[in-house]
C-alpha cells in the first residue's frame, strides 16, 4: 500500500491541531498509527475496543483538544450505543474508517459489517464521506475536518478497498 496518501492524511490532521490519535491496531491505518506513535507531539492511544475512542474524543473536546478515531469497518459496530454521547452532547467527532467487506473482499466474515457500515452510521446521524481514489484524499479529508470541528458534527470518512487494496487470500 502506498504511504504517500496516508502521509498526506497525517499532515492534514496535524495541521488541523489534532493531537489525540485513538486506534485499534489495523493494517489499513498502519501508516497513520505508526506516525502517531513516533510523533512526540501527539498522544497515540491504543484502545481495547473502538467504543473507547468515542468517549475519549468527547473527553478531548471537553478539555479543549482535538482527536481522531482510526478504526476498521468492523469496529463501527462496537461504537453504536456510545455514539449517543456524541449526538446528545453535540460533540464534534471525526473517524477514519478503513473498509473491509467492500470492493474485492475475500473473507465472507467481513461482508456483513462492511456492507452495513455506512447505513448504520447514517442511522446514528454520522455523515459519511467516501474515498476510493488517492486524488480525492486531500479534498475529502480537509472537508471532513472542517465539518467535524467547525460545524461540530459527527463525520466518518470511509477509506474504500479500491483505495486500500483488498487483503489477499490464497
Amino acid at each position, binding site marked *: 500500500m502506498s504511504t504517500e496518501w496516508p502521509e498526506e492524511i497525517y499532515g492534514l490532521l496535524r495541521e488541523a491541531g489534532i493531537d489525540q490519535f485513538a486506534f485499534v491496531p489495523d493494517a489499513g491505518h498502519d501508516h497513520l498509527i505508526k506516525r502517531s506513535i513516533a510523533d512526540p507531539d501527539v498522544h497515540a492511544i491504543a484502545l*481495547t475496543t473502538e467504543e473507547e475512542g468515542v468517549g475519549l474524543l468527547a473527553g478531548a473536546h471537553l478539555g479543549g483538544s482535538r482527536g481522531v478515531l482510526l478504526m476498521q469497518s468492523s469496529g463501527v459496530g462496537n461504537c453504536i450505543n456510545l455514539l449517543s454521547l456524541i449526538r446528545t452532547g453535540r460533540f464534534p467527532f471525526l473517524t477514519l474508517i478503513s473498509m473491509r467487506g467492500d470492493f474485492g473482499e475475500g473473507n465472507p466474515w467481513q461482508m456483513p459489517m462492511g456492507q452495513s457500515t455506512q447505513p448504520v452510521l447514517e442511522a446514528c446521524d454520522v455523515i459519511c464521506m467516501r474515498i476510493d481514489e488517492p486524488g480525492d484524499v486531500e479534498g475529502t479529508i480537509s472537508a471532513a475536518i472542517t465539518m467535524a470541528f467547525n460545524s461540530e458534527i459527527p463525520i466518518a470518512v470511509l477509506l474504500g478497498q479500491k483505495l486500500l487494496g483488498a487483503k489477499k487470500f490464497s
Partner: protein
Amino acid sequence: MPDSKNDPNTDPNKGTRAEGKTATGHLDRRAAVKSILNMLDEDTLIVAGLAGAKGDVLAALGDDPRIFGFGGAMGAAASMGLGLALAQPDKRVLVVTGDGELLMNVGTLATIAVSNPSNLGIICVDNEHYGETGYQRSHTGLGTDLATMAMGAGIGAVRTVGEESELVEAGEMLRQSNGSAFVLLKVRVDEPPKIRFSWDAAFHKNRFRQALLGTP
C-alpha cells in the same frame, strides 16, 4: 440465588427498590464519595458516570460547571476521563463510576494503564448491584473484584476502601499519585434520593468548556 440476608422488619431499605438487597461493603456511598471529593483540589475536573455515581457527585458538590454527568452511553465515563486528562495535563481529572458501568467496558482500565496519565483518578462506587434497573446483582457481588482487575490491567496505584478510616489514604492517593489511580469503594446497598440534573448533555458540555476554557 437468594439475595437477602436482612431481617425484613429492620431492613433500612424497607419500602425502596433496594429492599431486601445486601452487599459485602458497608460504607455509605454518598458520605464516602463526598469525603473523598472534599479532599481534592477545587479545580479538579469530574466525569460522573450514569445513575447512582452521578447522584453521589451531585450530592457532594451540587450542580457545578466542572462536572460532566452522563445520562446514558453506559461504559463511556472512564474513556471520557482519559481523553480529558490527556487534554488537560495540568489539572486533576476524576472519574466517578459504578460497578455496573465499569464492567461494561472494563478493558478501558487497560487502555488507561497503558497511557497512564498522572492526573487521572477513578473511583468505582461498588454496591454490587445494578441500581438503575431494579437492583439486580452484578458480577462484583458474585466474586468479581474490580480492584484486582485494575491491578491486572496495569494500574499502579490501586486501593480498596471498606472502612471509613481508609478514605483519607485513598483521597491522598487520588490527589497526589504520579500515575493513574483507582479506588474501589465497597458500599452498602441503598437507594438515596434522586437529584435533579438536566438531561441536556450539550448544555453541560458547553458550560464545562466555558468554565474551563472560556469558550463553549
